[in-house]
């Protein structure tokens, strides 16, 4: 039986303490990568399967999985699947996963949150998560149309009585659960044993946040997830689970302007050529002298060698060499925005990029930070991902780790 060894939770920097919102450079994929990387570092057991559970998938037909694997630094031979679902689907994915699986659950709307769980094979590590019972009924009070538009029936009492309430009743649990995901904090409080933490969302990610809450309280027992008429329960056993919590202080969403009338064109051949280096943050390494180049190039910057180069991962720690803020409207982009050239570790490699998780205009030369995956632009409808500079202020006091 697989064992839950790591749980990582991630909240975007924007919004309020009660409700986080994704930045204009974030989407389900970047949130998934943030949570996934937090769970995978440092050097957890090898992951061969990634399951992304969400109801918010970027409109990139056939393109999500390779981006996710590349940004997580996983072998392209790893299996990656997207599961459309809410909190019950995420909880089921954890309980039913094979060893070597990374389950990532992401919510974007109406509140943004992401979390990831690593399931290992070693019976001496982690904790059991055993499926208990599942109950499914159709109560389509909230649906999405083909364009992603949300249609709400908007009857909270109906959902409470015939949906979540009836669903949990059908689970026929012996005792009250330790946590319930998929309902409001107020409703959850009435359903659980003891005091459960308020969860940041009510979708897929909420299920993993509920598990993390129970782990943090060293609890063992039933954890429940519900969505409309569907409910599922798992039994969390005893054992040490590494917990990574990434919750930066919430910042109000800055006022920006989206200039009208613009579309950023995309060259798919250029996108495809750059993919491995850009999504994996890897430099070309000269086969003769080892000089690194980002982007990789045919002819070495230093020695002129034109033999095929290999790709090597770059450090993600970075310091600002120069920084500017663009105030003028630029079609297709939100102004103002920062542009920086940063130096990566002590490699001598520089990257031109944007700044994320801080309002524009706060960055100065010499500031240090970390490179994180962001959606740098949407070009002709296609999300264009790459690495943005996250200043250290965002990280400070935002992350803590523990085991329970």
């Amino acid at each position, binding site marked *: 039986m697989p064992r839950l060894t790591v749980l990582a939770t991630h909240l975007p920097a924007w919004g309020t303490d009660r409700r986080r919102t994704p930045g204009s450079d974030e989407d389900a994929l970047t949130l998934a990568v943030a949570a996934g990387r937090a769970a995978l570092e440092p050097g957890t057991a090898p992951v061969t399967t990634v399951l992304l559970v969400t109801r918010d998938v970027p409109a990139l037909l056939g393109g999500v999985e390779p981006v996710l694997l590349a940004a997580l630094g996983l072998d392209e031979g790893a299996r990656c699947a997207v599961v459309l679902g809410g909190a019950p689907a995420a909880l089921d994915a954890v309980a039913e996963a094979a060893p070597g699986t990374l389950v990532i659950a992401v919510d974007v709307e109406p509140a943004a949150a992401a979390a990831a769980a690593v399931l290992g094979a070693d019976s001496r590590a982690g904790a059991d998560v055993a499926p208990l019972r599942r109950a499914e009924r159709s109560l389509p009070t909230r649906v999405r149309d083909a364009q992603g538009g949300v249609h709400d029936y908007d009857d909270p009492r109906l959902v409470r009585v015939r949906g979540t309430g009836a669903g949990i009743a059908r689970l026929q649990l012996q005792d009250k659960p330790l946590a319930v995901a998929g309902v409001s904090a107020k409703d959850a409080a009435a359903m659980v044993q003891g005091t459960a933490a308020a969860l940041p969302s009510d979708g897929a990610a909420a299920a993993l946040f509920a598990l993390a809450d129970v782990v943090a309280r060293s609890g063992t027992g039933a954890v429940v997830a519900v969505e409309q008429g569907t409910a599922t329960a798992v039994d969390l056993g005893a054992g040490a689970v590494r917990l990574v919590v990434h919750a930066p202080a919430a910042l109000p969403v800055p006022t920006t302007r989206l200039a009208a*009338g613009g579309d950023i*064109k995309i060259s798919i051949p250029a996108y495809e050529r750059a993919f491995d280096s850009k999504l994996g943050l890897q430099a070309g390494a000269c086969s003769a002298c080892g000089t690194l180049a980002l982007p990789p190039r045919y002819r070495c910057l230093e020695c002129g060698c034109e033999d095929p180069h290999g790709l090597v991962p770059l450090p993600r720690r970075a310091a600002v060499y*120069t920084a500017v803020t663009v105030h003028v409207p630029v079609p297709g982009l939100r102004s103002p925005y920062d542009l920086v050239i940063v130096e990566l570790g002590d490699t001598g490699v520089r990257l*031109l990029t944007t700044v994320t998780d801080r309002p524009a205009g706060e960055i100065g030369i010499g500031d240090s930070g970390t490179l994180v995956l962001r959606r740098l*632009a949407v070009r002709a409808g296609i999300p264009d991902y790459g690495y943005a500079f996250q200043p250290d202020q965002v990280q400070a006091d935002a992350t803590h780790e523990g085991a329970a």
Partner: protein
Amino acid sequence: MRRVAVVGAGMTPFAEHFHLGIKDLVPMAVSEAVAHVDKGFDRSDIQAAWFGELVATDGQASGILADTCGLLDIPVTRVENACATGNDAVRNAFFAVSSGHVDVALVVGADKVRETSSRATFWEWMAMTRDQAWDYPLGLVAPANFALHAARYLHESGATKEHMAMVAIKNHKNAVPNPKAQLRFEITMEQALNAPMVVSPFGLYDCTPQSDGAAALVLVAEHLADRYTDKPVWVRGVGLGLDRVMHQHKTDLTTFPATVKAAKAAYAMAGIGPGDIDVAEVHDCFSAVELISYEDLGFVPRFGAAKAVEAGETTITGRIPVNPSGGLKAKGHPPGATGVAQCVEIFEQLRGEASNQVSDPRIGLAHNIGGPTAVSAITVLGTERG
């Protein structure tokens, strides 16, 4: 190699010529250059033409020059080398005359920037001139290219926004008497420092306007100079320099190596040094670019630009007047025309005919940098053959 003389020069006003197309501006500049030849000029003497245009408008560039100027029976070559297009067009025509293949050559530079909305222009040009995967999606607009340099330059050199403003104030003042300039008004330090930000550290008055315009020169071989004028201006040196294309690969953003290389080549050909320059038209697309260029051209020591501009060394009456025309900042910047128009200004300065005349110059320099900072072209002109 033969010596080459400039015997005629002309240009349209630089402005937002909404009512004029490229097919109007090009023949207007050529007619003025031809009319400017002291002893008269028959355009059928022209044996070949070089046309600097950054962005083709209204049709195929060299065909437009031949067609609109009545030059259908000579070869015309388009030159495109980013914002260094103008001085590179001069350079190519110079080589043709110097080598003996052509006796009389026409150089034209023109661009029609204001054919699209001012916001779209930024973006349409970026799409062609930025790395598609790595730079373009970030919104690396033209002012940002140079602002990345300027921010680092201010950080290392100790120069401030006030020094950038001093450049803008000087160039605005210089443009006032120039009937061809686009922004013929003075600005104050307070206005410059309080202007809306474009791309920090550049406020509105640190930036060139968007301009339309055309400029033209007539180049002839030494043995023909007397036939056209008693006051020829000699092409003493030309130079072109390049640098890495992407900012990520430039090791030091406080200098433009392309300019250093172009200047070295031009000075060597002219047999002079930077101390011999009496007047210069320097590529001030953004105020800080003029400061950095003082150093790259050798006018002042490294990081000495702030002190020089504080001391007024580059004003009309200073040690080395820079941008007496108003520069790109206030005269305007239709990219293909810019370098050619700089040479028009230096031609007039060296003949004592400029609208904002400096005192008795003998040698003048015209400088472009562009692409965004990957290419520089320089022309050195003089009153003596050399």
